[in-house]
C-alpha cells in the first residue's frame, strides 16, 4: 500500500475498515435522529461485533442507549453469564425482558413446537418490550447475507404501529441518507451490519480481539442426538425421549439461541483461528443449526412480517 510522507495511505479503505465506518455511521445516525433508541443484544457473535462498534462510535462517551435482551428463559446458561459480565464490563444499562404471559403459561419448545414457542417467547416478547419502554428505534445485528428475505431489507427498516414489516412498501434508501421519520407508535429497526458477511464478522473479531461466549469454542459438552441434530442438555428441563442418551462430546456452536433449538457441531476448534479455519472449509450453512428455519420454505419472511427481527 502506498503511504505518503505524513503516513496517510493513498488507497481507499479496505473492505473491513469500510464496513466498520459504515456501521458506525448508521449507529450514530440512529442515536442522533431518534428520541429513544435501544440496541437488541442477543449475546451472539454478530451482537458482540455490533456492540463493539457502538463503543467505538461514541468513544470517549458511552453509547447513549441501553441494551435489551429478550430472554426466553431457554438460553444457554453461559450466554446469560456472558451477557451480565459484558454489560458490567462496559458500564452499559441492560434491560432483560421476558414475556410474562408466556412465562405464566410455561410456553416451551417441547410442548408447543418451535414455531409457536418462538412466536410467543421471542416475537411477542420483543413487541411487548418495545411497547413497554416506548422505543422508537431498535438496532439488530442481522446481516443481508444470512438469508434470502434479509437481502432485501433496508438498513433502516420501517415497522408500523403493530411492528409489522411490509416488504412491498419499503422506503427507498439512497447513498447514506437514512430516513428516520416515524409517527407515534411506529418504529425503525436499524441494521448496522447489513453489508457484513460471516467471514467479515469472524475476521473482525480476530483483528479486534472481541470477547466471545465460550460456547463458540469446542469443549466437552453433554449432548443428545435428536432429529439429526446434537442438542446440548444445558439443564434438567431437557427431558430425554426413548432411546436417547446423553454423551459427552467435543462440540461447539456456530450460532447461539435457545439451547433446545440450537444444534451443536462436532469440532475440536477451541481457538478463534481454528474456528475461522473450520468456517473457511465449512460445508454447512450457518442457519442450518437453527431448527426454526426448517419449518417451512419462507418461514423467515413470514416471521419478519409479523415483527420478528
Amino acid at each position, binding site marked *: 500500500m502506498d503511504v505518503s510522507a505524513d503516513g496517510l495511505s493513498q488507497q481507499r479503505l479496505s473492505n473491513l475498515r469500510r464496513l466498520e465506518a459504515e456501521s458506525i455511521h448508521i449507529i450514530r445516525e440512529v442515536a442522533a435522529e431518534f428520541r429513544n433508541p435501544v440496541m437488541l443484544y442477543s449475546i451472539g457473535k454478530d451482537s458482540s461485533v455490533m456492540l463493539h462498534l457502538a463503543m467505538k*462510535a461514541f468513544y470517549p462517551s458511552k453509547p447513549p442507549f441501553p441494551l435489551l435482551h429478550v430472554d426466553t428463559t431457554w438460553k444457554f446458561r453461559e450466554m446469560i453469564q456472558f451477557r451480565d459480565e459484558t454489560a458490567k464490563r462496559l458500564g452499559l444499562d441492560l434491560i432483560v425482558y421476558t414475556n410474562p404471559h408466556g412465562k405464566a403459561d410455561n410456553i416451551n419448545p417441547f410442548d408447543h413446537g418451535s414455531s409457536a414457542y418462538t412466536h410467543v417467547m421471542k416475537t411477542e416478547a420483543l413487541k411487548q418490550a418495545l411497547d413497554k419502554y416506548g422505543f422508537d428505534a431498535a438496532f439488530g445485528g442481522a446481516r443481508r447475507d444470512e438469508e434470502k428475505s434479509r437481502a432485501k431489507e433496508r438498513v433502516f427498516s420501517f415497522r408500523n404501529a403493530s411492528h409489522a414489516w411490509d416488504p412491498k412498501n419499503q422506503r427507498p434508501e439512497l447513498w447514506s441518507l437514512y430516513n428516520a421519520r416515524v409517527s407515534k407508535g411506529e418504529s425503525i429497526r436499524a441494521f448496522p451490519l447489513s453489508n457484513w458477511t460471516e467471514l467479515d464478522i469472524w475476521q473482525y473479531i480476530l483483528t479486534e480481539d472481541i470477547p466471545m461466549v465460550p460456547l463458540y469454542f469446542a469443549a466437552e459438552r453433554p449432548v443428545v442426538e435428536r432429529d439429526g441434530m446434537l442438542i446440548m442438555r444445558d439443564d434438567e428441563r431437557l427431558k430425554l425421549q426413548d432411546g436417547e442418551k446423553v454423551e459427552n462430546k467435543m462440540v461447539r456452536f456456530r450460532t447461539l439461541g435457545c439451547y433446545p433449538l440450537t444444534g451443536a457441531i462436532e469440532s475440536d476448534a477451541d481457538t478463534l483461528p481454528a474456528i475461522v479455519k473450520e468456517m473457511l472449509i465449512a460445508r454447512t450453512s450457518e442457519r442450518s443449526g437453527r431448527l426454526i428455519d426448517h419449518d417451512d420454505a419462507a418461514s423467515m419472511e413470514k416471521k419478519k412480517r409479523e415483527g420478528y427481527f
Partner: protein
Amino acid sequence: MSDAEIIAPATAFETEAAVTDYILAQEDKDQLRFLTCGSVDDGKSTLIGRLLYDTKLIFEDQLAALEKDSRRHGTVGEDIDLALLVDGLEAEREQGITIDVAYRFFATEKRKFIVADTPGHEQYTRNMATGASTADLAVLLVDARNGLMVQTRRHAFIASLLGIRHVVLAINKIDLVDYSQERFEAIKAEFETFAASFEFETQQAIPMSARFGDNVTGKSDKLAWFQGPTLLEHLETVKIGEEELSQPFRLPVQWVNRPNLDFRGYSGTIAGGTVSVGEELVVAASGKTSKVEKIITPEGERNSARAGEAVTVTLVDEIDISRGDLLASSVSRPDVADQLAAHLIWMSDDAMLPGRSYLMKIGSKTVTATVTEIKHKVNVNTFEHVAGKQLQLNEIGFCNLSMSVPVAFDPYEVNRQTGSFILIDRVTNATVGAGMVWFALRRATNIHWQALDVDKSARAHGLGQTPAVLWFTGLSGSGKSTIASMVEKKLHMEGRHTYALDGDNVRHGLNRDLGFTDADRVENIRRVGEVAKLFVDAGLITLTSFISPFQAERQMARELVGEGEFIEIFVDTPIEECKKRDPKGLYEKAEKGEIKNFTGIDSPYERPENAEVVLKTVGRDPEDIAEEVIEYLRANNYLVSPVFVDEGSGI
C-alpha cells in the same frame, strides 16, 4: 450465508498461526460495490446466481434446499435454476420476477463484492437509482439475440446520472447466437456510439453465457476469439474510487460528542478528501474557522484521516457547531446557499408539485424545501428534455429548489456524498424524491463571497495587466485554436498571465454533459462565458476558441463582463477554405450525414456584425495573424498595468 470465498484446501492451514496470518492478510482486501441491470429475461438473476455459485459461496445445504425449490418453481427443467438463489420474497417467486432492490455478497482473493440486484421493469427507475447510488460500477445486461433495448439506454443514462463512472456491457446468452463474434461486435459498436456522451471512465463489453458459465468467472473455449477479461477478472481489477481522496475535505457533523465539560468532539463520516492535525477547517454555514486539535478514529488517535472513515475530531477553538453543520477545508469551501438546481428522481405515487413543502435531508442536516420550478423533465428513454408542471413516479426532472435556511453542499459531480439529498413527505414520512445537486443558484451564494475583500482590480493590479476576454469565433477549421494558441504564447513570453478555454478542456470536463443540439450549444456558450468571466475576475487575459455560431450567445457572453473587457475576434475564413483544410475530416462526415447539427452544413453560423477584430486568414502566415491580435491589444492599452486613480485604496 456467504463467504468462504477462500476455498483454500484445509492442508494449507497446518497451524493456527498460518490461519491467523492468512486472515490478517485479508485486511487489505478491497471492496467493490456494483449493480446489475437488465430487462426482464436478460438473465440477470442467473448471472448473479452464477457468480455466487462459481465463487463457491453456495453451501451444500443451500443447494439441497434449492433443488427442492427448483422442482416447484423452476423454469429450466431438471437443471438447477440459479435465479432462484437470488429471487427472495414469496410473491416474487410466484411471479418469477424480482421486484425490489436486493443485495448479494461474494468475494475472491482480491476483493469483496457487494451486488445491488435491481429490476428492469419500466416502472422501477426508483429501484435502479437506489442501487446505483452506492455503486462504483454498473453491469448492463443485454440478451445477445435482442441487442440493445430501450431499457439498456435507460439503464446507462440512470447509471451516469447517479455518478457511476464504470460500466460493463454484459452481452449475455451468447450461446443462443452460436457464440457469434460478429453479433458481439455489432452490439458493442452500437453501445459505444450511444454511450459516448456519458463519457464513462471505463467501458468494457464482455460476451458471456451466465447459464453455462462462459466468460463469467472462467474463460470459454467457445469464445476463444474474445481477447478481453472474464467478468470476474474485470471486476477484480478495475480501478475505482481513488478520486475521493483527492477531493476537498468534507465532514458532515452527525453527532456532537460531549462526555464531560473538558471534551467536545465532532463525529461524522469523512465525505471527501483527507484531514490532518493542525489543518484549518471552516464551518461552512457560519464561515468560522479553527484548527484540528485531535483526530479520533475507530483505531485510535491519529495524525490524519481520509475519505470513508468514521471519525471524531476536536478543534483548537470553541466554536458553535452542531449536528447538520459541514466541516470543510478552509481553502476549498463548499457552496452555501438557500437555493439550488438539481436533478430530481421522483419515487412516490403522489406526484411532486412545485410549491409543496417537503423535508430535505442533505448530509446530516434536515430542512424544509420546495421545488420552485421544473426547468424540464428528462425522458429516460430518449434523453430528450420535455416541459412539465409536475413529476410523476419514476420521472426525472431538472428543478430549482428553495430551502428554508442556507445549507452547505457541493455539486454531485464533485462529491456524491455532499451533493445528494432525499425529499421526505411531511405527512406520510415516506422518502419521495432523490436529488443530485447541479449547482447553487446565484442569489444565495453570498455567504462566503462577502468575506472576499480582494477584488478584480486588486488582482489585476497585482498581475500588472488589464484582464479581458479574447473571444475567438468562426467556423470549424477556420484556425481559431491555432491563432489563439499563438497569441497566448506571445503573451506568455511577455510575462502576461493567461488562460485558454477551448473545446478540448471544456467539452471533456465542465460541459461533458452537453451535446450539439441548438439548446446544448447555447448552454455550452453560456457556461464558457461564465467561466471566462471568473477568469477575468481573477485578473487573467482569457482566450476562448469556440465556434459560438449564434449572435445572441456571443452578446450574452459580452454582457457578462465589464465594458471594454470583451474583445470579439472573428476568424473570417470562408467555408470553402475550411472544407479544404478539414483537419479532422468533419466536413466530409457532415456532408454524408454522419454528423448532425454541423455548423455551416445543417446548422447556421451567424456572422459577427460588430467584432473588435476581424482576421482574414486565407493565404496568410498564422504567425502574422497572431501578431495582428497582439498589436490590437497593445494599441488599446491592454498590455499595461491598469492605472488606479486612488492608488492603494482598493486593498
